[in-house]
């Protein structure tokens, strides 16, 4: 069930990252690392080579989750699920312009996350 390389959780809010980690572990999946900023996320991708990334849009620092996803995709192809609290059209358009992954809106339900995660890693 656990994909090779595990799952990287990127969110600048510790409590939300912790909740996502708990939900993934409940699904029987491994979380290889978590990151709070775009640069940290890219570094974690290089180090752990995850099979999936859960990416928040608003991150600590100047770059956001879409920037981080762009950099990650330039390094290696990895499925990315965006999880954002913003429903602004501009944000969604930026994501859809460069990435094919699904976009989930906070608060994320367990079944929603499970469905998208399983689809991404299958």
């Amino acid at each position: 069930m656990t994909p090779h390389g595990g799952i990287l959780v990127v969110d600048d809010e510790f409590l939300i990252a912790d909740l996502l980690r708990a939900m993934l572990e409940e699904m029987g999946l491994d979380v290889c690392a978590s990151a709070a900023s775009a640069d940290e996320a890219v570094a974690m991708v290089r180090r752990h080579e995850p099979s999936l990334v859960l990416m928040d849009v608003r991150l600590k620092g100047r770059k956001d989750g879409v920037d981080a996803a762009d950099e990650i995709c330039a390094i290696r192809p990895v499925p990315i699920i965006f999880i954002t609290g913003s429903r602004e059209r501009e944000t969604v358009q930026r994501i859809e312009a460069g990435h094919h992954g699904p976009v989930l809106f906070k608060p994320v339900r367990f079944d929603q996350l499970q469905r998208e995660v399983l689809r991404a890693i299958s």
Partner: protein
Amino acid sequence: MAIALQSLTPSKAVSAVAATTGGPKTGGRWVAPLILAQVLCTLAIIPVSGLPGPELPSLTPFFLSGILTAELATSFLLFAWFHDIRTWPLLLLATAYLYSTALLSVYLLTFPSAVLPDRVFVGGSQAAAWAFIVWTNGFAGLTLAAALLEWRDGSRRMTPAQARIATHRAFITVASIAVVTLAIAASADHLPTLVRGGSFTPLNLVLSAIGLSTLMMGIAVILLHIRRSNELFSWLAVALVGMFCADLLSALGGARYTVGWTGARISWVISASVMFLFFVRQFVRRQHALVDTRQVLEDAVAQRTVDLTETIRQRDLLLREVYHRVKNNLQVVDSLIAMESRQLQDVSAREALAELRNRVFALGLVHQQLMSSDDLATFSIAPFLRELCDNVAASLALAERGVRIDVDAAPIRVNLDFAIPVGLLATELLSNTAKRSQATEVRVSFQRDAAGQAVLAVEDNGGGDTMNGQPLPETGSPGERILEGLTRQLEGRMDVTRDNGLRVRIHLPLPDIGA
């Protein structure tokens, strides 16, 4: 208002001026009366133009100085205008007035008694007459050329580089003609005679007639084809009529110092002043336009300021409302948890929900502080921490258990992103510490250290490493994970000391809130 502002943008203003060499056409109503007045005055003088007038040679430099000054100023203003508009007719007109200024200087130097008493400064007895013919006929030719160009293709513009070159060439040409004319005038006694015994010769009258015809053609072109579309050339027509009247009176006078000859000088002064007055009028008109524009802009800025102030007020109202609703919703969450808690029999479960309620209260308290903040973005952490500690103390009934809480917080301003984790950290630390049965005093402080970082400290006198008589939670418990996780989120560092009490100090970089 938007339309008014748009119509007054600098590019529009420049375009409006550049669109025509004449500018606004509201001054055209003066042209016909002025021309008519000059013609009537000339007609009145013509019958007596041949009579002898006062022989005052000293009046010549007086008249010529006035004409020279007016035409030099007009030439300068026309070249300045040409610099912006760059049309051929305007260049020719500016050159015509520069030419007139240069040739007038030659005429002044060659006229008897104008510079030196009882003799000429340069040349012989014919010099002034030839300088006069070259001046008036050349000026008439240049103005006719300008009028024809304006009529046929007045809107074609040069590039800035072409305009610069053309200006240089105009100056060089005029200067060359003036020098050549002065040289010829100096030896004019070898040329055909134009003045004999104070009277004009037939050749002089023929040359004058050519000049008059040229002037007449220029006036006709302007009045018939240009006057309605170009105010500058309308006023030029007034000036040319003045010059025509002057030349006519001078010719009809037949000799120097006749009534016609003297009337011609006066008419020349009027003619030379017309264009200068046109520019004075333009200046005054533009000054008024500037004042009006400034007033419109000031009104627009004032209205914009009112609009922005109202927008900011509405934004603040909206933000306050959002904070208020978030706080209320968190209170609803708190009430729901309390309702569930009352149904539970298990003490540990009720304690867990009590801790959860404290955390929810911390979140709500942050929004309450923001709601009453002046800038709706930051607030002082001191009253926030005091109220937070009071709530935790009340929820855990610490006063009833003999535990005293002392809060010492500096009035450091913090923002939402910083206050929420700090509030949760303080709640977590205080809950853990206060639950220790041995503690009777708990001290909570939030101060700035020497390095400029904030230090959140919770200290008690609870003795050993136990809680409610049991050992402290093991590493990895939810409480400890929250402490570590939130400290890491704020890029802080946590020090724990257990020595006759528990002392936890969390060092946190303060947020940049632009204060």
